[in-house]
């Protein structure tokens, strides 16, 4: 019996193996475009730092075999639907199993070796702002899934080159800003990637973006506790890292960065804020002691 061909991808240092799609006309190429060229096909399972996703053809539709809890048992009618679903599921599984200290639901951009995170829920305008910032020299690390790793005793944003999902309106805005994008990827009309990506960098700023139609541009400093409060709501669940440890890592991140909220409707005004952001980012590691109120010292020593 011929073994079922498999496609394996390395996402966030986690191997995702997809079975049951090799015989379809377009899915292997679409998945390669979405998830990166598949790596050497070999046996991976949960005991070998990997996960297996298997699709089965049932008449005119595909279905996922043995979906985990929380994964919708959606019938997939077209190869396009299957590609979208598998892309989402592969990243979801990779994030859940990632052996990283922290993974945030956040955009991230880098300029001059400094990373700024843009954490918020879907629909807050992260993607458009993250990609548009390239017009001001801030290259994207990610627009949605931001993994962080330990490096020299601090957390460094390494980014994730997952495709961005862009509406027609966002696409038009980015084109008007002259942002070069690759896509549509895998024949999916709303899947794009930036042409230029940033290199990993330590996080020194956290800007919580919120697009509100008609709103004036408001850029407001927030306390580290407020920043941490936002980050705790934006941490992805990871099986390998307990929740309290993720919150502790988020606290380390918030302690090193200057935090702000940015409410805007005019994109150019929001971009202007980032022109001067580096000057407003305080290097917490240098000024930490002077920022602790004396009253806290006296209380601690009492």
């Amino acid at each position, binding site marked *: 019996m011929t073994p079922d061909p498999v496609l394996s991808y390395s996402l966030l240092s986690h191997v995702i193996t997809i079975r049951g799609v090799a015989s379809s006309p377009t899915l292997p190429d679409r998945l390669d475009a979405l998830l990166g060229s598949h790596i050497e096909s070999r046996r991976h399972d949960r005991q070998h730092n990997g996960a297996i996703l298997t699709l089965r053809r049932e008449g005119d539709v595909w279905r996922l075999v043995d979906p985990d809890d929380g994964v919708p048992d959606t019938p997939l009618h077209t190869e396009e639907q299957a590609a979208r679903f598998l892309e989402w599921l592969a990243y979801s599984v990779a994030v859940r199993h990632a052996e990283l200290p922290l993974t945030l639901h956040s955009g991230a951009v880098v300029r001059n070796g400094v990373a700024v995170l843009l954490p918020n829920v879907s629909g807050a305008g992260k993607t458009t702002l993250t990609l548009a910032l390239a017009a001001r020299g801030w290259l994207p690390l990610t627009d949605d899934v931001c993994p962080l790793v330990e490096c020299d005793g601090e957390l460094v944003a390494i980014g994730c080159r997952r495709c961005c999902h862009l509406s027609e309106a966002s696409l038009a805005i980015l084109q008007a800003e002259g942002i070069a994008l690759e896509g549509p990827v895998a024949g999916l009309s709303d899947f794009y990637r930036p042409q230029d990506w940033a290199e990993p960098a330590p996080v020194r700023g956290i800007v919580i973006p919120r697009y509100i139609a008609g709103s004036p541009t408001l850029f407001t400093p927030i306390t*580290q*506790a*407020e920043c*941490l*409060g936002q980050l705790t709501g934006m941490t992805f669940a990871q099986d390998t890292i307990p929740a*309290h440890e993720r919150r502790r890592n988020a*606290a380390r991140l918030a302690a090193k960065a200057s935090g702000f909220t940015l409410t805007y409707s005019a994109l150019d005004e929001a971009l202007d804020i980032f022109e001067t952001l580096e000057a407003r980012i305080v290097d917490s590691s240098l000024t930490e002691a002077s920022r602790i109120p004396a*009253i806290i010292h006296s*209380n601690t020593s009492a």
Partner: protein
Amino acid sequence: MVESVYLLQRADIETHIMPDGTCLLFDVVGNEGRALNAAGALTWDYCDGTLSVGEIADELAELLANVPQVRADTLALLAELAQSGYLVTSEHALTSTAQ
């Protein structure tokens, strides 16, 4: 809130004290956080059952004499934290510990 009441931090609340003096309280049961400014963080730190609500407010008023309304703000914060379950009365805390 009665000022003679003694309040204690609920044992399972995570306290993240930040370098700028603020702190985040995280309720692992409700899965939600509550950010406190520096004065709030100090108020929270006093809630170990040693001082009554009124005595904590007096302490804050003395320590932060240049901050207007600090006594009233402290009382309001303590009432809010008690109402939302971050703080419990010391009798209640002792009962919970005994169980």
